[in-house]
């Protein structure tokens, strides 16, 4: 009796844990033929997008390890990266040095913001996600204050092409022509054309240097998990009270986790924007947070458990949908707008579903734990009767 229940429980839990990627594979499988895109186009687009977004998504892993949930505060790091890019384009530093310099400028800003975020989150334990989410909005206000009013007034900006016509404040869109795709083009690799049976593939470009950076980051994560600090974070993620009594400085470690995440998000945003080629000064960071989190969750990660595999599965599935949905919507309903809204709906809906599943699982586990405590006494009571 007990055995049976546990098997069905295991099955349902397995399905609950992997429901999201499975659903997505089905949606994509349906939508790809509807969109009518060629395999070459899809693969090329995916290669570009995986290179563009993976770094940002990887930055979410460290706080999850420390049990702090999805770091909605990663947009703080994205903003720091953008501040670096504004300065670099003002000083007209092009190529790889420009990217590196943008990261160097962004780092202290990201560290400061990460420290702030970590300390705020330590005051709101158990509510980290909603707090980091609102903190993102709050710092966005401060960011606007700095970029829209202080830059060009208190903070000197030389290039008139960056500054609004009124004399201060940064323009809404900045062209990053000097550093556009320099990392992607550093080590170019062209593959194809192929013919495997009836499957035909034209020439695709692979941005090797970007992938090397991403691979290096993955190794960093793997290595970091094994360090003392990484182990501490995992212990805190398991149980904060036990970790505390084991002598791990809980608050300090949590702050470090957020700082690492914020700094990495800053680098991730620089890599993202060098591929895009334009910086939407007031919007780019907003989308970075939402899309990264949605992608990670689509990859089958949960609020408390996420690995490198989830990142890559998620980024592929999410962007497959991203490319395909508008065309599929147009071909199916006659309106591209519908596919566009469907995309937005799925991005938000998936976060909602993942959060619900996580909370639900936790709730069920609590109920199970209570039941397992009650189990033997029930049996004894029956025996007695």
């Amino acid at each position, binding site marked *: 009796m007990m055995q049976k229940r546990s098997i069905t429980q295991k099955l349902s839990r397995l399905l609950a844990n992997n429901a999201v990627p499975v659903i997505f594979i089905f949606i994509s499988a349906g939508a790809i033929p509807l969109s009518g895109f060629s395999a070459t186009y899809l693969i090329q687009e995916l290669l570009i997008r995986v290179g563009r977004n993976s770094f940002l998504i990887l930055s979410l892993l460290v706080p999850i390890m420390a049990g702090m949930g999805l770091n909605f505060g990663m947009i703080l790091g994205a903003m720091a990266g953008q501040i670096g890019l504004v300065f670099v384009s003002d000083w007209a530093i092009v190529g790889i040095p420009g990217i590196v310099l943008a990261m160097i400028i962004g780092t202290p800003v990201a560290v400061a913001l990460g420290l702030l975020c970590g300390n705020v989150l330590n005051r*709101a334990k158990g509510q980290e996600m909603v707090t980091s*989410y609102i903190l993102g909005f709050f710092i966005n206000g401060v960011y606007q204050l700095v970029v829209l009013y202080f830059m060009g007034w208190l903070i000197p900006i030389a290039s008139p092409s960056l500054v609004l016509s009124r004399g201060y404040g940064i323009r809404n869109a900045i062209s990053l022509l000097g550093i556009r795709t320099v990392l992607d083009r550093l080590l170019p690799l062209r593959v194809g054309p192929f013919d495997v049976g009836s499957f035909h593939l034209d020439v695709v470009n692979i941005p090797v240097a970007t992938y090397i950076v991403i691979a290096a980051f993955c190794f960093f994560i793997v290595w970091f998990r094994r360090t003392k600090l990484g182990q501490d974070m995992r212990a805190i993620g398991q149980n904060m009270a036990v970790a505390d009594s084991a002598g791990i400085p809980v608050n300090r470690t949590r702050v470090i986790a957020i700082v690492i995440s914020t700094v990495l998000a800053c680098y991730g945003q620089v890599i993202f924007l060098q591929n895009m080629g334009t910086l939407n000064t007031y919007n780019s960071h907003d989308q970075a947070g939402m899309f990264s989190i949605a992608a990670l969750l689509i990859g089958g990660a949960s609020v408390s458990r996420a690995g490198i595999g989830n990142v890559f599965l998620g980024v592929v599935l999410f962007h497959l949908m991203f490319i395909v949905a508008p065309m599929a919507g147009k071909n199916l309903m006659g309106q591209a707008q*519908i596919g566009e809204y469907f995309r937005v*709906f799925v991005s938000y809906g998936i976060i909602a579903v993942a*959060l619900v599943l996580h909370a639900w699982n936790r709730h069920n586990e609590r109920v199970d734990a209570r039941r397992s405590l009650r189990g033997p006494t029930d049996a004894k009571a029956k025996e007695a009767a």
Partner: protein
Amino acid sequence: MRKTVRKKRQAIHVFKKFVDMAGWPRIIIGIFLFSLFMAAPFVGVLISTSLSNTLERFGMNGVLVLAMVPMVQAGCGLNFGLPLGIISGLLGSTLSIELGARGIGGFAAAIALSVPIAVILGYGYGQLLNRVKGDEMMIATYVGFSSVAFMCIAWLLLPYRNPTMIWGYGGSGLRTTISVNGYWFHVLSDFWAIKFGHFLFPTGMFLFVALMCFLIWLFMKTKTGTAMTAVGSNPEFARASGVNVDRMRIVSVVLSTVLGAVGILVYEQSFGFIQLYMGPFYMALPAVASILLGGASVNKASIWNVLVGTFLFQGILTMTPSVINNVLQTDMSEVIRIIVSNGMILYALTRKVQVKR
């Protein structure tokens, strides 16, 4: 000598009590707002216009902020899922226009149409929130967002026919903004409105907001309302005294959603437009910020918090563009709004834990 010391102490004591009661954020924001009103005449802003604008916005947003109260009281946290209620209101208002209902009857029809939708959506939403206790706020946020995005698709596909609402060229799909002019524009605001000079007092809207507040106050005094408050303050205790916790929470969520629907209708009749598509997306944040500014915490809120908070928040929203812009010659109001509203929410979220310790 001793007497003055004692008096001084007494004054300090009274001051401390006042600070404790009002809280520093409210005092600072209140002083800020007061100084804005003081500064207004010197920078060429008419006080009468600003005051009547503030009052109008107060009326527009009052019910939306009131929609926070039931859920906070029942321990479901801040209702970041307010867009769900707003969507019900939008459905009701577009349906009433589709039916061609005009005047006060049209407004009543809009309410009558949106309330059942809100009850159904709120019930489902409440069922969901009961399964995710402890994580309500984050999930509510994303339920709100995804329902708004879902409705974006629905607004394009729903078979509305009224030519004032659908796109002219395509012949189908609702417009992003729909004028309620000629239907029920200002039906509440102009009812018994008092006007002298630049000052206009929208009596009808205020009466309506007052009625809503009174009904909620009355509800909170009933047996169900008391049980709901008990659930919010201590769910274990409430369960032990025989209160059905899950049911109370659902009642509160339904009530919040219905108030959100009615709130957006009051907003629209004064504003003059129905904003569809991404319009309701960020509407929860100002309402959440308002009630927190009024002194509510994540698990305690009163009608008084609603009134004070809405007045302070909307006051700042009206006064900063006119006054600050005249002083600095720039439009900083948007940035100030973002910083104040989110700062307020952050303050409340970080404070709750401190109190617990």
